[in-house]
Each structure stands twice: as structure tokens, then as C-alpha cells.
């Protein structure tokens, strides 16, 4: 899938929080999930995850697996709050873009 449109940092944050809001997961799976939706080929998730952790939106815990370690990421309550804010922003953003790209106003049902 080619991505004509770039991905902003905020959108990437939103995607990560969205995936985590549906359940804890570890780095590799998280990356694959996000990669399904958006093209993140010229960046990697680690800086994003580190930043979100420092902002208090997610925490980590380790679980051993097959003799090695898996670091799981878990969304926090303030992370959920942030995710809800992103969902609201996304709705507005999407509507505005539709207006201009698709041309003419979209009339919502009453």
C-alpha cells in the first residue's frame, strides 16, 4: 500500500493508544498492528512509545516467554483520556478534510 499522505506525530500517537486501548501488547505485535493501518516505514515506534511513556499515557511490564523477555505496553487512565480526545479530534479533522477534498458541503442527517 502506498501512502501518498504523510503521517503526523499526533496521528501516530493516536494509533498506538488506539491499539493499546483494546488490550496490552508487546512491541513487535504493536508495530505490526500499527503498520497494517499506516505506513511507518521511515520511522520506528520506539521513540513514540518512549515519549508516550514519559507523558504517562502508558506503562510497561515484563513477562518471560520461551526463555527470553517480552516487554508489554499497557495504556493508563490518562492514556485512555488522551485517546478519547484524539478520537474527537480525528472526527473533526476527517470531516473538515472531506469537505475540502470531496468538494461541497456534506449535509448530515438531522
Amino acid at each position: 500500500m502506498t501512502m501518498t499522505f504523510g503521517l503526523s506525530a499526533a496521528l501516530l500517537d493516536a494509533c498506538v493508544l488506539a491499539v493499546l486501548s483494546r488490550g496490552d501488547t508487546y512491541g513487535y505485535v504493536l508495530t505490526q498492528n500499527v503498520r497494517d493501518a499506516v505506513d511507518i516505514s521511515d520511522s520506528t515506534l520506539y521513540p513514540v512509545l518512549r515519549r508516550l511513556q514519559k507523558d504517562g499515557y502508558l506503562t510497561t511490564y515484563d513477562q518471560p516467554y520461551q526463555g527470553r523477555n517480552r516487554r508489554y505496553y499497557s495504556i493508563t487512565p490518562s492514556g485512555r483520556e488522551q485517546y478519547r480526545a484524539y478520537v474527537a479530534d480525528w472526527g473533526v479533522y476527517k470531516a473538515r478534510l472531506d469537505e475540502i477534498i470531496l468538494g461541497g458541503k456534506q449535509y448530515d442527517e438531522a
Partner: protein
Amino acid sequence: MTRLDFFMRLREGLHRLPPEEIENAVRYYVEYFDEAGPENEQRVLEELGDPMKIAQQITAEYMVRAIEPYRPAPDEQGPEAAGPQPPRKSGLSAVWIAILAVFASPIALPVAIAIAAVAFALVVVVACVFLSFFGVSVGMMAGGVFGMVVGILCLSAHVPTGVCAIGSGMVVSGVGLLLFLPTVWLTRATFSGIARLISRRVVRRDAA
């Protein structure tokens, strides 16, 4: 590139970060490779791309976070989530250790005194230069005004002398004024430049 190359370059790129942060980052990618499995090592290497670029991104995120003011506590606070405290702590102790080392060493102490003396002398010299410029320009302005006053007084006695004195007085104070303004600007620029240099070095220590 091999997996080993990747990690060598990654660590190299991350060298400015505290060891804890470097280990966190390395661990993430080790896990990533392990998860993909050894058979996918090449594919993962291609996917991740240039380790230097990754290191750059991670370092940049970290630096930004270090300079930003501390945010009010969120729900979960891990040991790393303390915001700017960790880097500031390490930066400060590095400075104190350096000062302590200088004073603890019997050979280094006279050298340190000599360096401080030279630095002080330089500052004094620069200050004197600026002072002399001020002196000259203010002197010229004052002298010029004086000349004008004398000229006005002479007008009653001998007009040409008076006019000449007024004229030359105006020239002198004009030149003095022309010297005065750039001197003020130069002095201010020099000292703010020095201040900025000092503050930048302090900030860099804190962030590193």
C-alpha cells in the same frame, strides 16, 4: 549490515543519552529481532533501516523531554517518568565532580588559578577598552558643548572667533555622539554574547 553492526551503530548513535536510556532502547530492538526470529533477521534489518537515523530520533525525543518543564503527575509514574530530573542530576554532579577534581589535585590547582587569572585579566582588558571608548566619546561630546558655550560667550567680544568656536564645538560633539552610540551597542552585544555562551554551555551540560 548484520544484526551486530546494527546494534553497534545504534549504541554509537545513542552515546549522548544516559546508560539507562541506551539500554532501554537497545532492549526494545533486541526483543524486536528475537520476536521476528533469526530467519527474518535480514527482513527486520531492512525494515528498521539506518540505525543512526533511529538513534537520532530517539536522542532528539529525549532532549526535548529533558528541557521541557516538569509536567504535573499523571496516574502512573515509573522511575523513568520523572521528567527532567534525571538528566539535570547527572549534569550537576558532573560539574561538581570536575570542580572537586581540580581542587583536589595539587598540580592542577596553581594551573587553575593561572587560568582564572588570565580569564579575569582578559575581562578587565576588554572592560578597559570599552571604558576608554566611552571616555573618548563622552569627553568629545562634553568638550564640544563646552566649546559651543565659550563660542556663544565670545560672540559679544569678537564675532568670527565666537562663530568658529561654536562651529568647531558642534563638530566635536557630533563626532563624540557618533562614537558614543556604536560603543554602547558594541558593549551590549559583547556582554550579551558572553552571557549567551555561558548559558549555552550550562544548558548543554544539563541536557547531556
